[in-house]
């Protein structure tokens, strides 16, 4: 059974029909990617899954349990965590405080300590800057912090929105290595990217979105080989 399943999702911004019946599923342990142009509805899909937007129709289930009427913090407690586009770290809180906010719903002191160590192990730069105010971090460090903060919730499914946006190539590689590492340790990932090439290189499957609809889906290898995808999203 799929871990996260979205069925026939309809979402509106006022009168604008942003998602027109999207269906997708993510199996346990997978990395699945949503690719598509600006405004295709990728971020909208993630925001609806994490409860920031309310669907007007359709269903979102986590291991069979309906999430579509839950509050955002309730959904986090269920194990679905959204690392939003543009990082959205708390700029006036310290690095450690940001990570502690990721662990907000948890009460297992020793588990939190262990996960803090894990994040610092994955991103040594964050350990160096643990007492620093997060607003003073560089873009790459902020992305590390946002990812780490998401991990601190100890998610079953991690929703990543544009983790490579605005980063230098070296940092993109670093972030993608960490995504693979997170996945290897058992976390299922739904990845939204404009950088389709990067996304398809780590994902096992993908969905191509266009103006609120899934126009194509398949294994990452098939999508990479697909003529249309190559022309539209891979620049070649």
């Amino acid at each position, binding site marked *: 059974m799929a871990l996260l399943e979205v069925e026939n999702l309809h979402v509106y911004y006022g009168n604008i029909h942003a998602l027109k019946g999207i269906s997708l599923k993510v199996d346990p342990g997978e990395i699945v990617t949503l690719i598509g142009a600006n405004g295709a509805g990728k971020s909208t899909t993630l925001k609806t899954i*994490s*409860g*920031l937007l309310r669907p007007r129709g359709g269903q979102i289930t986590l291991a069979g349990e309906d999430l579509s009427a839950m*509050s*955002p*913090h309730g959904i*986090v*407690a269920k194990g679905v*965590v*959204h*690392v*939003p586009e*543009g*990082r*959205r*770290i*708390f*700029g*006036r*809180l310290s690095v450690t*405080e940001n990570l*502690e*906010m*990721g662990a*907000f*719903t948890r009460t297992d002191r020793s588990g939190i300590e262990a996960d803090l160590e894990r994040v610092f192990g994955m991103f040594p730069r964050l350990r160096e800057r643990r007492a620093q105010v997060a*607003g003073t971090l560089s*873009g790459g460090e902020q992305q590390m912090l946002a990812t780490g*903060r998401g991990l601190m*919730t100890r998610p079953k499914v991690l929703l990543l929105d544009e983790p490579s*946006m*605005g980063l230098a190539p070296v940092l993109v590689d670093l972030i993608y290595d960490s995504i693979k590492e997170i996945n290897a340790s058992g976390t299922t990932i739904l990845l939204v990217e404009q950088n389709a090439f990067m996304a398809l290189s780590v994902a096992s499957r993908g969905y191509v979105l266009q103006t609120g609809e899934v126009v194509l889906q398949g294994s990452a290898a098939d999508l990479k080989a697909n003529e249309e995808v190559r022309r539209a999203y891979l620049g070649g």
Partner: protein
Amino acid sequence: MQSSLMRRLSVVDLYLWAFRIVVLVVVVWGMIGTIMARRYPGEVWIDFVVYGLSQGSIYALIALGYTMVYGILRMINFAHGEVFMSGAYTAYFVAAAFGRSGYLDRNPVVSLLVVLAVAMITSTAIAVLLERVAYRPLRGSPRLVPLIAAIGASFFLQYAFRGFFGSGFQAYPETQVLKGTWAIAGISILRTQAVVLVAAVLMMLGLYAFVMRTKTGTAMRAVSEDREAAALMGIDVDRAIVIAFAVGASMAGAAGFLYALVFKQVHFFMGFIPGIKAFTAAVLGGIGNIPGAMLGGLFLGIFESAGPILFLDGLGIVAPYQLKDVIAFTMLVMVLIFRPSGIMGERLVVKKA
């Protein structure tokens, strides 16, 4: 187009500079006049400062509520002055009962603590109720709407108290222990003022530790910075907002109790002026900024108590103390014109991507 815009800007600037210079000249002139006249010995000034600090610490406590709610919701809770009044007024009944039974003088510490607790609990309950029935349903509407709801709530509370308990002043019972003065470091200080100052400082330290050191406090700061991102981390945003209201209101309740200790009376309209003054203090310190509200309150208190004599007496104005509110609000206007972000306020840098 460009040049006409420049010209208009510089005219406004010119006007503001002229205003600033006039105020400065008046202030300096007045100060020189007062000091040259040597009418007031040093002890008087110390009295002014002590009085200002104790009055200012009450403003500071109330200002915390304005600033916390603003920080988290970007909304001015204009009913906050009435939250302060409700605490003081309700605590009056307990204090009066203690006074009648004589318990107040037999066991002043316990009874004053009980009265303080009643004030804080009442204020908290009223603010939480207001948030739930008047503000939360309006959360999604334009910013002016909750503001008007707050003004409505303010009237509602004032006239509810007037309706139930009459429009007269109610005299708070006095405690024997707090009559007279204490000599501290060679300065004699009214006992009530000393108690107010110490209690307010303790409250503020407690609040600061709560906001900076606890998980709930950190979550409140996170929500005030980015409500959506906080929700995505599993923080219950509604709960954080209620806590901000509750904590701010408990400070206002404590302020109400201290105010009643100093002025020894309560009245249904007593929240209005301190509320506006505390709002001024919050703006002065930089609204949304917690240490700013504390500093702003103390600063306003001292300014108000020493300012009239210092600035106006030297200008030959009779009974300058009557003009202390003029000084307080002139200061508000000055701050709004010349440093809209307040003493401690930072320019909000919105970081995107």
